[in-house]
Each structure stands twice: as C-alpha cells, then as structure tokens.
C-alpha cells in the first residue's frame, strides 16, 4: 500500500480505530447500546442521542480490506443464500453471524441494540430482517418514496432551497419516520431527544462539510493534486461516520489545513502526475493498491471519488430552524443522488469538469447488482464530452471475483490510449 502522505490521514485511521475500540469496550463492559446502520441513514440522530452507530458499508470495507470477505461470503452461500445476492450490504452480517466470528477485524462487531436501514432497494430489508432476527435486536427501516420533482443541477439548490428540491410530502413523511426512530433511540438510550442539540450538531456538520469543500477546491485548482484519492477517502469517511462531533469537525479542519497548505506549497501527491483520473462508484476495498498502480507507469493519478465531493454538495443545509426537516432533506435522496439519473450523471460530469479529469474509471458493481443502476448514464454523459471511460466490472467487497493482474493489464492498455490522445 502506498505510504500515507498526510498527517491527517494517519490521525483519521487512528481516530477511527480508537473510536471502535472504545465502542467495543463500552458495549462489553457497560452494556452500552449501539447500532448498526446503512451508510445513508441519518447518523446525526444517533449522534445527538449518543447511540454510536457503525456503518454497515464501512464495516464491510474493513472486513474486505483484511481479505476476510471470501471466507464469510462462502459461509453465507453455504447457508443457502445464493451466490447472485448482494454482498456489500450482507458481508458485515455474515461476519457477525456465520463461521468463526472471532476472526473478524479488531475483535468483530458486538451484538447491537438496533439495526437500521433505508429501503433503497428491495434486498436490504431482507438482509436486515435476517440480521435482526439473529441478534433479536430492534429493527427500524425507513421507507423511501421516489422523487418526482427532478430539476437540473440539484447541487445548486440543495443547500438553500432544499424544501422545494426534495418535495414537501417526502420530507414530512421522512420526519414522521424519524419520530419513530427517535422513540426507539430514546427507549434504548434512556435519553430524551433535544431538537436544539440536533440543530447545534447540524451546524457543526455544515462547518465540517465547508472544510471539505475548501479542501476540494484546493484539489481542483492545484496544478497537481496535493492529496491522493485514497487519503481523501480515509479522512472524509472517518469524519462522516461521526459527523458533527467535535472530533469530526477538527479532523476535517486538520485535513483542510494540510491539503490547502500542500497546494500552496505546490506539493504534489505524485510529482509525475500527467493524467487526472476519477473513480466513479464505491471503493475496491480489497485492492486499494489499484489506485496507485498506474502512477509510475502512466503518471495516472486518481484525484476524485464521490466521497470528498459529496460532502459539501450532499450534506450542507442552510436554514436549520426545523432541524428534523433539514435532516430529512439530507436523507430522502442521498443514495439516488450518488448513483442514479438525473442526479448522478449530471453531478459527476460537473465534477469531472471542475477537477480537470482526463479519464474516468466507472465501477459497475457485479456482486451487488441492484447497485449497478445509473452507471450507463454516467458513462455516456462522460463519453459525450470526450472523457474516455474504463468500465470496471467488479464487486466492492468480494475479492473472489477480482483478477488483479488482468485488471491492471486492461487498465494499462486503456491508459496507454488516453496518454496518446
């Protein structure tokens, strides 16, 4: 794995490990409640109620990065769940209920008090139902009505005009679902929900995302990227999972400071940078070296992924007089904005322009098929403006489907062509 270049990246990794260790300790020693939830859940509510939540996708990425996914996914298949089913959202479940669960990273996930998911697909409710039944844990699912108001350039409206953008009926519905979730959290934690506390937290989330925006602008404007994509992801995601906490805000600030300072000093993550690459989709968590594999040979540097850029565009909400409603607007379309038309293709194209992208690698998830939607729209939008696309058909966590050598060979050929243009 390429050496970490930013002090803030080391701090982010260590901070996350320390957070997890203290979570385990509290859960085992004082039986403190904690939750497992999907990445697009309103983490802010859990934060405000002091019920820590582990992101299902983050944990799957950790299991996959430790190369344990094949073991647990095999176990899942042996139990009767067929090989075509989604892996990204089920790997964490498998690692907690099947086979030798003590093999899981960092001692594994303890029994949660609550499992929570937004129904962005037809499968995730089943994963969570199975999981909750195994642990006899409470299950909260947030249903997801579709958006029908689909104006262009959503990111220009989402900060100030979110009320109109996300349709009142969808927001009100989400708030009612939040109220049910809050009742659960109150029961589990023994604490009373305080909207002022949530508002203060939401204000801190705004500050955190503003720091990310400044870091992003520095990357856009610097002649060569001051920070590799993987380090962006480590910094951003460590903070996003705990967004609005004092630690997360200061972590975001430290990251911003370091990126801006490196940009001002013209320090390049890869001095050899000749091609700026964007990665569209979730990460290849079991082969993060892939992202630095073409620096030496092609001067190809991955400079963009959704993780940093979505922070400001997807999360910032101004006008927090009704913090629950504002939070609802962050939750109602998050997944669709990242992956589906009209949101994803238009936004990613804009990102490609502002980051001066030379070529895009677009992931079409294989072992997570329902998540593959929207990728063709993204690819076509990029190709239509002359940005060459390399389609990566792979799973985010299932290394069983990944031929590292072949992918590097194919990607090299593609980059040879891009380099010749």
């Amino acid at each position: 794995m390429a050496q970490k270049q930013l002090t803030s990246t080391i701090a982010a990794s260590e901070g996350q490990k320390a957070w997890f260790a203290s979570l385990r300790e509290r859960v085992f020693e004082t039986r403190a409640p904690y939750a497992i939830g999907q990445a697009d859940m309103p983490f802010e509510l859990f934060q405000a109620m002091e019920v820590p939540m582990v992101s299902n996708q983050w944990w799957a990425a950790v299991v996959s990065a430790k190369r344990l996914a094949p073991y647990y996914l095999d176990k899942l298949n042996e139990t009767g769940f067929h090989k075509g089913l989604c892996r990204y959202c089920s790997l964490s479940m498998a690692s907690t209920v099947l086979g030798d669960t003590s093999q899981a990273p960092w001692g594994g996930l303890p029994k949660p008090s609550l499992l929570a998911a937004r129904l962005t697909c037809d499968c995730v409710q089943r994963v969570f139902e199975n999981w909750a039944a195994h642990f006899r844990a409470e299950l909260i699912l947030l249903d997801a009505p579709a958006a029908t108001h689909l104006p262009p350039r959503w990111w220009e409206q989402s900060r100030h005009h979110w009320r109109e953008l996300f349709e009142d009926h969808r927001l009100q519905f989400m708030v009612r679902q939040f109220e049910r979730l809050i009742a659960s959290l109150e029961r589990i934690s023994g604490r009373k929900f305080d909207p002022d506390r949530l508002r203060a937290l939401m204000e801190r989330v705004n500050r955190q995302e503003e720091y990310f925006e400044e870091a992003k602008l520095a990357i856009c404007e610097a002649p060569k990227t001051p920070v590799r994509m993987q380090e962006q992801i480590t910094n951003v995601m460590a903070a996003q999972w705990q967004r609005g906490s004092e630690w997360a805000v200061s972590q975001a600030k430290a990251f911003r400071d370091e990126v801006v300072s490196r940009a001002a000093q013209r320090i390049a993550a890869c001095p050899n940078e000749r091609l700026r690459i964007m990665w569209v989709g979730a990460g290849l968590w079991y082969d993060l070296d892939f992202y630095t594999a073409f620096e030496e040979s092609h001067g190809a540097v991955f400079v963009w992924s959704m993780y940093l850029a979505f922070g400001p565009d997807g999360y910032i909400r101004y006008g927090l007089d009704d913090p629950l409603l504002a939070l609802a607007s962050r939750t109602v379309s998050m997944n669709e904005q990242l992956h589906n038309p009209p949101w994803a293709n238009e936004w990613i194209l804009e990102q490609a322009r502002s980051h001066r992208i030379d070529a895009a690698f677009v992931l079409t998830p294989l072992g997570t098929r329902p998540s593959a939607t929207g990728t063709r729209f993204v690819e076509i939008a990029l190709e239509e403006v002359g940005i060459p696309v390399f389609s990566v058909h792979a799973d985010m966590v299932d290394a069983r489907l990944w031929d590292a050598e072949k992918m590097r060979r194919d990607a090299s050929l593609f980059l040879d062509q891009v380099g010749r243009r």
Partner: protein
Amino acid sequence: MRKDRIAGITSNTVPWEILRAAGYTPLLLEDEAGPTPHADRWMEDVFDRRFRVIFDRLCAGAWNHLDAVVIPRTSEQEHKLYLYLREIARTQPASAIPELYFYNLLHTRTPESYDYGLERTRQMVRDFDASEDELRAAIVESNRARGRVRDILQKRREGRLEGSAALEWIRGFYSEDRGVFADRAPDQLKGMNEQVATHRPHILIKGAPLKDASLHHLVEEAGGYVVAEDDWRGSRAAGDTDVCLNKDPVTAIFEKYFYDEVSPRVHPVVHRDAWYQREIERGHLDGVLFYVPLEDDVLGWDYPAQLAYLASRSIPSVLVRENVREHDPPLAEFVGSLHRK
C-alpha cells in the same frame, strides 16, 4: 365514462379503478420478442427483460397507442425505470415518451406509510380528475373481474383446470377490458367439469416473478398439477378481498393496494409470507417448487427461511435455479417422487 385512452401500467399495484374512472383503459405492459437497442445502450443487465422491453419500446416510440404510462413504487426496478425514462424524456427530446406518472405507494406496513400512501392516492385521484361516481362504477367493474379470477382459481383447486391454462387466462385481468373479461369468464368456466388432476401431485410454485407459463408446462409434462403460484399474475391476482364499497372510494382503493397486493417491498416478513404460509397450512400441497434463479436479487434472501418452514411441515420441495424451458431431469424426478395425498 370515456374509455378511449390507454394507460400502460407496469405492475399489479397501479390502481386500475382510478385510471378507469378517469377514462383510461389500463393495460399491463408486457415483454415482447425482438432486440432492445435503447435498453442495451442505457440499462444495466440488472433489469428484468420485461422492464428492458418497456424502456426500449417507450424510448423508440414504438408504443404510440399509449396515452400515459403509470409506474408504482412497488419494486426498485420500477423506480429506476421511471427515473431512466424521465431522464431520456429530458435529455432526448425526440424520444416522444408518453406522459409518465409515478404512484408512490409504499409497502412497509407502518402507520406512516399508510397515511402517506393514502395521501398519494388522493393526489392521484386529483391529478387524474376522477369523480366519486366514476370511481364507484370502476370499483364495481374491477371487483366483478376479481370475482371471475377467483372462480378460475376455484376451478383449478377443484382439479378441473391446468395451472398453465389458469395462468394464461388470468393474464386477461391485466391486459383486457375488465368488464369484458368478467362477462366472458362464466361461459368459459361452465364447460370445465372434467377432472384433470386425479392422482397427480399438487404443486405450489414460489419464488421470482414468473415471466410466462413455461415452468408450469414443465411440471405438467412431468405429471404434476400446479395448483397455485405465489405470484400476482396467478393465484394472487384478485387478492383476498374486493375493493370495499362501503367506505370512501379513495380509501377503499388505497387499502386494497396497500394491504392486499404483492410487492417485493412488503415488510415485515410476516405479511410478506402470510399467503405462502396459509397455503401450506391448508394441507392441500404435495410439494413446492422454489424458483430462485441466480439473477434474482431479492427472493434468495427469503428462501432459506421459507425452506425451513416447509421442512417443518414435512413438505418436499425442489429448487430451480435456471429459467428452464425444456425437459429438466431433476425437476421431472422431483415431480415423479411425489404422491397425491
């Protein structure tokens, strides 16, 4: 009531009665043979063939008999189909996609989803400008057709109608004028008095949505009798109840679609599996055929628990992974091993 406009619908949960009351003839959009170049360009292979065809034909302008297309929030594929079509309509003005309408019916059985769905149904009635009288007339017509579907299913339970024939017949519930469908059925049913199922094992098909009757034919060729299928195109087309005529028609219509229709998004599982478990408890089944192909993304999560439930009742089952169309030895062997109770 004008009935000269056609509204394409993508599945069972589009309120037929509202469209009918607004002067549309609702028509289920079906798979058809032929290439799908538009779908090949824009859609990933995760979409079922039927949705690919719908997308393709609408983009191509090949279905210009449709005045509108109504899509419900009943499956994720339909949600994405709607988004894709909206985007094509926005970015490719020449595509001439008919007017699209999205019906945000949710299937989590929570008080919030109930209130939300009812409000969306009221909105749909307003958007389509359907009057209360027209709604009541449409409910009567639709309930009449539901009654005939139940008659067809009853004939099958009595062993007088092959499962494949029942499935083909029930298609008319979605693709024909429901009044005509209801009028025609009694005469056709009258002649069906011969037992066709004596000594043949009674089999339930459970799993992914059935594209056609090919699986039924295979079971029948092997000597089995498909007595039911957990599918909105077959045994579950009419549901358990009619649309209630004794309450506000909008509430009655909504409740029918909210409580008594099939969707992969129904939660909690106790409601999702209720029909299946009831069929098993009735004690009339000799075997169950699970159809869970590897392209399935959804039903496979329910399969182990459903299998365990069946095993606890000592009912044999077989798992079919492929979309089999020709003689399948394991399937034939399974059917051959069953005995009629």
